[in-house]
C-alpha cells in the first residue's frame, strides 16, 4: 500500500495553475469534432423554426396575413404573439421586450412571427410569404436626433458627482467644450445564435442554447411558458464566440423553440441566418459624448462635466448597467477632483443594444481619453505628458467619481516600463521629423493606458457555484456555472481543481454547463468567469479535501499536519498513496466525494441612487503604444507597430491570457477602425453580414505586434491564485490606435488642432478630417 516518501517522485502535476496549457477543446477544434449546437444529433422528428421580421422602423401593424405562410410546403405551425403564454423576456424586468411583437413594431427587423416547419429551409422560405400591412409612425434612429425629439430614456440615468464642478470650471485657467461620437459594434461571433428545445414530461423542457447565461435562459423560458424554473433545464457546452452578444440575446430563440416544442411535443431548433442574427439582435451601444473640461496651464484637470448619451434601441435590456459602466470608466487612470458625469440611456427605433466586451466601459474610457487629447492639443503637448500628470496618485488624489478609493494603482509602473521598452519617446520624435518631409504619407504614435474595474456593478451577480465529483477511480468531474465561449474558462477552472487535488489536469473531466447541476448562476460576463467560478470550484475541492483529510487522520491515525496532497498522491505520515488508491479507500469508508462549491465576492457594495460605494473588488491595468501610417490623399491607413504591457495579476494560464490580450486588442481595433454600423433612411441596418460589416483580418494585424504580460504583477486582493480578470480590459488598449490615427491626421495642421476623429475612424473619416484640418 503506497510508496514511502523517499520513493516519491518530485515531479509536479501537469497543467497546474500558472502554467500555459492548451485550451481543453483545442484538439476537438482543429479536427472539427468540437460539438456546437447545430452539430448535435437531433431527436427524431425535430422541427425547425425561423423568424419573420418587421420591415418598418416604427409602425402600427394593421394586419398580418399569414395564410400563405401556413400553406407553404413543410410548414407545421406559425406562432404569433397570441401563442406566447407570457409574452415578455425583458432582462431588465421592465416588461418592455416581447418574445413576438403584438400589433406594432419598434425597429426594422423586430420578430413578428415564427414559422415552424419540417426543415429549416421550408421555414425560412415560408417567412417570405407573409403579407404585413403597416401604418408608419415617426421614428428616430440616431441618438442625437432622439434627444432632440425628446425621446424617453429606456431606464433611469445615472449621475456620478464629486467636488464642485460648476465652481471649478468657472475658476479654471483653461476650458474646452467639445463632443464626440463613438460608434457601436456587432459582436460577429462566428457561431450565430441558436437554440434547440426538447420537450419532456409534464411541463418540462430541456434547452440547448448558445448562451453566456444559462440561468437567464432558464428563467426567461419558464417565464414565457408560465412554468416554474424547475421545469426548465438549460445546457451549454460551448459557444462559437459570445463577447456579450449571448448574455441576453439568446433568450428569444430559446423561448420560441420551447413554446413550439411544447405545442407540438417535438424537438424544435432555431438558427437565424447571419443577416437576421445581425439585424434582430443587439450590439454595442453607440454613444454621443459632450463635455466641458477645466484645466491648468500644465494640463492638470480641475473639473470635468460630461454627458454620455447612448443609442439603447427600443428597450432597456442591459442599457442601464452599460451606460453606468461608461460613467465608471470615464476617469480611466485620471484623477478628476471635481466631476459630474451623467448618462442618458436613450430610446431609439433600433434593435435593443446589449452587452459587448467592456460593457460601456470602452465608450466611457474613449470619451475620457478624448478629454486628455483635447487638452494636449490645446497646450501643444504630447498627450502622454497630460496623461501622466493626471494619473491617480497612490496615496492621495486617488478617489474616483464614484467615491471608491483606488488602492491597487500600478499604472505608473506599467506605463513607465512600456514607454521604455517601446522606445516611445525616440519614435515619437522621429515620426514628427518624418512628417515634416512627407507630403502624402503621415505617421502617428500614441500611448494610452487602461484601468478597468472588476466586478458586476449589480452586486448580487457576484456569486458563483460549482459541482465537483470525485469518482471511485480517482477521476474527477467538474461542473461550474460559467460558460465556455472560447476564453478558456473551463481550462483555467480545471487547472484550479488539478492544483487543489494535486492531480494531473487530464484527471479532470470538464462538463457542459447545466442549470440542473449548478443553479442560480450569473452570466459569464464582466470578465468575471475565472474569478468567480475558479473560487467556487476551489471551494468545492476544499470541502472534499477537508473530508479526505479527516478520513486520513482517522484511518491512519495521524494528525492533520501529516496529511498532504502532493503530485498525484496523498501523503499520509511517511506513506505516499497514489491518488486513485486513496480515493478508493475513502469511498470504502463511506466518505462523501462530491461537493457543491460557492463563492461571493467580498468587500463590494454600491448605492446607485447616491452614486457612491465600492462597486469594484479591484482594477486591472494595461497600456499600449500604437504606431500608424495614413495616406492623406485617400484616408487609408495601416497599423505599423503595437507594443502592449498588460496586467493579469498572477496569471492562471499565461498562454490563454496572452491570447485574450491579443484577441481583445484586435477586436478593439476593429471597433475603432473598420467596423461601421450603417442604417439607411428607412431605419434599416445595411451592414448586416461580413460582406458589408468589416471585422479585422489577419492582414490588418499590426505589422509588428509585441504583447507582454506584466509578470511581476499580483492581485492585491485575494482572488483565485492572485490572478486578475482578462476578458475585457485589454479591449481598450486599442484606444491607442484611434489616437495614433488622430496624431497622423493632426500633422497636416502642424498638431495645432485636435482632429476630433469620431469612431470608427474609417478611411473616409480620416480623409474628411484631413480636409477639415487643411482648411484650418
Amino acid at each position, binding site marked *: 500500500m503506497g510508496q514511502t516518501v523517499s520513493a516519491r517522485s518530485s515531479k509536479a502535476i501537469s497543467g497546474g495553475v500558472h502554467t500555459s496549457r*492548451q485550451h481543453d477543446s*483545442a*484538439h*476537438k*477544434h*482543429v*479536427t*472539427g*469534432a468540437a460539438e*456546437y449546437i*447545430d*452539430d448535435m444529433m437531433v431527436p427524431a422528428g425535430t422541427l425547425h423554426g425561423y423568424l419573420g421580421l418587421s420591415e418598418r422602423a416604427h409602425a402600427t401593424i394593421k394586419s398580418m396575413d399569414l395564410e400563405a405562410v401556413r400553406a407553404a410546403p413543410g410548414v407545421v405551425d406559425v406562432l404569433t404573439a397570441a401563442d406566447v403564454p407570457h409574452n415578455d423576456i425583458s432582462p431588465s424586468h421592465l416588461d418592455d421586450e416581447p418574445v413576438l411583437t403584438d400589433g406594432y413594431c419598434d425597429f426594422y427587423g423586430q420578430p413578428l412571427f415564427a414559422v415552424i416547419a419540417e426543415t429549416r429551409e421550408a421555414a425560412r422560405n415560408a417567412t*417570405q410569404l407573409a403579407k404585413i400591412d403597416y401604418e408608419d409612425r415617426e421614428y428616430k434612429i440616431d441618438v442625437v436626433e432622439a434627444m432632440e425629439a425628446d425621446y424617453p430614456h429606456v431606464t433611469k440615468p445615472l449621475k456620478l458627482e464629486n467636488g464642485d464642478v460648476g465652481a471649478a470650471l468657472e475658476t479654471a485657467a483653461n476650458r474646452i467644450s467639445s463632443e464626440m461620437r463613438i460608434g457601436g459594434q456587432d*459582436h*460577429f*461571433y*462566428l457561431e*450565430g445564435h441558436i437554440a434547440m428545445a426538447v420537450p419532456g414530461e409534464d411541463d418540462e423542457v430541456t434547452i440547448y442554447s448558445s448562451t453566456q447565461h444559462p440561468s437567464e435562459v432558464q428563467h426567461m423560458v419558464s417565464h414565457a411558458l408560465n412554468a416554474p424554473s424547475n421545469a426548465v433545464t438549460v445546457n451549454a457546452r*460551448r459557444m*462559437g*464566440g*459570445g*463577447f456579450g452578444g449571448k448574455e441576453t440575446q439568446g433568450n428569444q430563440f430559446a423561448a420560441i423553440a420551447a413554446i413550439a416544442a411544447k405545442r407540438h411535443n417535438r424537438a424544435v431548433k432555431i438558427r437565424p*441566418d*447571419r443577416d437576421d442574427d445581425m439585424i434582430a439582435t443587439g450590439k454595442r451601444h453607440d454613444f454621443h459624448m459632450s463635455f466641458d473640461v477645466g484645466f491648468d496651464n500644465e494640463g492638470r484637470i480641475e473639473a470635468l462635466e460630461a454627458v454620455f448619451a447612448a443609442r439603447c434601441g427600443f428597450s432597456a435590456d442591459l442599457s442601464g448597467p452599460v451606460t453606468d459602466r461608461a460613467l465608471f470608466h470615464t476617469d480611466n487612470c485620471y484623477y478628476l477632483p471635481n466631476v459630474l458625469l451623467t448618462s442618458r440611456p436613450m430610446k431609439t427605433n433600433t434593435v435593443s443594444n446589449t452587452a459587448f466586451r467592456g460593457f460601456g466601459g470602452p465608450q466611457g474610457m474613449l470619451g475620457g481619453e478624448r478629454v486628455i487629447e483635447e487638452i494636449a492639443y490645446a497646450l501643444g503637448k504630447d498627450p502622454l505628458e497630460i496623461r501622466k500628470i493626471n494619473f491617480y496618485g497612490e496615496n492621495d488624489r486617488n478617489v474616483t467619481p464614484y467615491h471608491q478609493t483606488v488602492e491597487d494603482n500600478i499604472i505608473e509602473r506599467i506605463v513607465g516600463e512600456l514607454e521604455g521598452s517601446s522606445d516611445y519617446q525616440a519614435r515619437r520624435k522621429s515620426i514628427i521629423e518624418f512628417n515634416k518631409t512627407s507630403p*502624402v*504619407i503621415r505617421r502617428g504614435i500614441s500611448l494610452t493606458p487602461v484601468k478597468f474595474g472588476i466586478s458586476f456593478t449589480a452586486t448580487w451577480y457576484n456569486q458563483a457555484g460549482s459541482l465537483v465529483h470525485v469518482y471511485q477511480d480517482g477521476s474527477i468531474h467538474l461542473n461550474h456555472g460559467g460558460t465556455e465561449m*472560447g*476564453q478558456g474558462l473551463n481550462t483555467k477552472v480545471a487547472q484550479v481543481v488539478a492544483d487543489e487535488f494535486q492531480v494531473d489536469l487530464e484527471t479532470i473531466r470538464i462538463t457542459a454547463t447545466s442549470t440542473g447541476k449548478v443553479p442560480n448562476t450569473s452570466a459569464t460576463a464582466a470578465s468575471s468567469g475565472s474569478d468567480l467560478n475558479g473560487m467556487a470550484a476551489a471551494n468545492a475541492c476544499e470541502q472534499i479535501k477537508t473530508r479526505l483529510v479527516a478520513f486520513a487522520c482517522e484511518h491512519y491515525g495521524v494528525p492533520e499536519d501529516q496529511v498532504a496532497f502532493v503530485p498525484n498522491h496523498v501523503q499520509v505520515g511517511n506513506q505516499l498513496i497514489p491518488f486513485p488508491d486513496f480515493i478508493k479507500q475513502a469511498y470504502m469508508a463511506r466518505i462523501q466525494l462530491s461537493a457543491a462549491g460557492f463563492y461571493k465576492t467580498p468587500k463590494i457594495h454600491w448605492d446607485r441612487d447616491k452614486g457612491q460605494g465600492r462597486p469594484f473588488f479591484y482594477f486591472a491595468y494595461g497600456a499600449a503604444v500604437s504606431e500608424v*501610417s495614413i*495616406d492623406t*490623399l*485617400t*484616408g*487609408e*491607413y*495601416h497599423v505599423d507597430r503595437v507594443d502592449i504591457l498588460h496586467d493579469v495579476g498572477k496569471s492562471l494560464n499565461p498562454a490563454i491570457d496572452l*491570447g485574450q490580450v491579443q484577441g481583445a486588442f*484586435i*477586436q478593439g481595433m476593429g471597433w475603432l477602425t*473598420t467596423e461601421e454600423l*450603417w442604417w*439607411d433612411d428607412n431605419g434599416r441596418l*445595411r451592414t448586416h*453580414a*461580413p*460582406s458589408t460589416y*468589416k*471585422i*479585422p*483580418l*489577419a*492582414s*490588418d*494585424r499590426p*505589422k509588428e*505586434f509585441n*504583447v507582454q504580460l506584466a509578470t511581476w504583477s499580483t492581485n492585491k486582493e485575494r482572488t483565485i491564485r492572485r490572478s486578475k480578470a482578462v476578458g475585457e480590459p485589454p479591449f481598450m488598449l486599442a484606444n491607442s490606435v484611434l489616437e495614433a490615427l488622430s496624431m497622423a491626421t493632426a500633422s497636416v495642421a502642424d498638431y495645432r488642432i485636435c482632429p476630433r476623429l469620431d469612431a470608427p475612424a*474609417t*478611411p473616409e473619416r480620416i480623409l474628411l478630417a484631413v480636409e477639415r484640418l487643411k482648411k484650418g
Partner: protein
Amino acid sequence: MPTAVRNELRFILNSEVVHLQNVSPTLTLLDYLRLQRLLTGTKEGCAEGDCGACTVLVGRIGPKGLVYESVNACIRFMASLDACHIVTVEHLADVNGQLHPVQQAMVDFHGSQCGFCTPGIVMSLYGLWLETPKADAERIEKTLQGNLCRCTGYEAILNAAEAVGQTGNGKDKLVVTHEEISAKLAELKDGSRVEINSPEGSSIVPATANDLADVLENNPDATVVAGSTDVGLWVTKHMRDISPAVFIGNLVDLQTIEEDDAGITIGAGVTFTDAFEAISRSIPTMGDLWDRIGGEQVRNMGTVGGNIANGSPIGDTPPPFIALGASVTLQKGSATRTIDLEDFFIDYGKQDREPGDFVRALHIPKLPDGDKFAVYKISKRRDEDISAVCAAFRVRLDGAGNVENARFAFGGMAATPKRASAVEKALIGKPWAEAEIDRAMALFDQDFTPLTDWRASAEYRMLATKNLLKRFFLETQGDSVQVVRHTKTLAGA
C-alpha cells in the same frame, strides 16, 4: 455527334466515390455535408462566402492537372462538383486520431479559442501548405483573407502557419494519392453532359463550351453559374430559384489563357487564381488589385468572365480592363461577336447580352510601351472588401511631355463601370504637370454623381476619386505615396 447524357453527379468525398442523383440545383456543398452526410466539422458562419468557416478543399483537373484549392462550401453548388475531389476537415487526422501537422501546429500555438472558425482555418492553411509548404507571412495573410477569426487576433494562427512550414508535405495523404485520384477523376469525367431533374428544379453541366452553346440555345433563360460567388448568394441570401441552372465551372475549354503580341485572351471560365500569374506579370499594379478581390476561396472559385457578365457597377475588373481598352467576346449558338467592354455595360443591371448569349472570352490588349497605367482600390477594409471606388488610369505622353491619350475608368462612381470623359478630355493635349492635374480634378464633378451608401458617402467617393488622379500623377513622378503593408516593387508608372 450528340453529346452523351448522364443523370447523376459523380465525385469523390474524402475517400469515397459518390454517385448522386436527384440533386436540387440549389443544394450547396455545405448543406450536403452537414445535413445529408452529417459531416459537421465544416461550419456555416455567414452563408455568403465571406467568413471562411465552411472552407473545404476541392480537387479538380484544371489546366495544370489535379489541383486542390480552398473554396467556400456555403456558396458552392453540388452540381458544380462533378468529377471533383471534395476534402473536408474530417479527412485530415489519420485513422488513429493522429493530428495532421497543420492541426498539430494550431494546437501547439494556441491557434483556436472558440473553435468555430478553426476547421475552416485549418483547411485554408492545409491548402496553402500543399501548395507552398514554407510560406512567408505575406502569403499566409493572403491565404487567410477569406477566414475571419473573432477571438485570437490571428497572431497565434500566423505562428502556427509559420511553424508548420518546418514540415514537408511529401508524406501527406493528398500528395501520396495524387496520381490515383487524378486517374479516378479522369475516369469520372467521362465526357458526358450531366442533366439532373429534381423536384426543386433542373441542373445541367455541359460537356464542352460548344455543348454549353447548345444548352443555352435550348434554355435561353437558364441561369449560368460559373464560380457561384455571386449566384450563390442569390440562393443563400435571397432564396431565389435559379432553375434551370447551367454549371460551367468545369469547362476546361473556357479556361484557356492565350498571350501573344497583341495581348492576353482570357477564357470566361478562368478563375481569378488561375489568371493571376498572367495578369500580374503583364499589367502593372494589377497583381495588387487581384490580391484584394474577395478572399482566396472566392478567387479560387470566381471567374473573370463572371465578374464581367454580372454587370455589377462595383466589380473590380471592369475599370482596369476598360482603361486598357479590353473587348469581350459573346457567343450564341455557334455565332460569336466581339464588342468593346466599355459598351457591354449599358445601364444598372443591363448589359449588351441577349438570351442565349454567354461570355466566351475577354481580350486585354497589351499596354503599349511608354503608356503609364495604374489601378487603385479604395475600401473600408483593405482586403476582402468591396470597393467604395475602383479607379484605373492610363495615360500616354508625347515626346514633349503632353498628354496624348488618357483613359480613366471607375467603379463605384456610377450605375455602371464608367470613364471620366470630361477629365480625360481636359487633360489631352495638356502638359502632364501638377497644375493641370489640379485643374482636371475638379472636372470629376461633371463626370460623376456618386451615391451615398454603407461603403462610402458621395462626398468621400468624389474626393477620393479626385485624389487618386493626384496619386497616379505623383507615382508617375516616382513618388512613393501609398501605405504599404509588405514592401514590394510597386510596378507601374
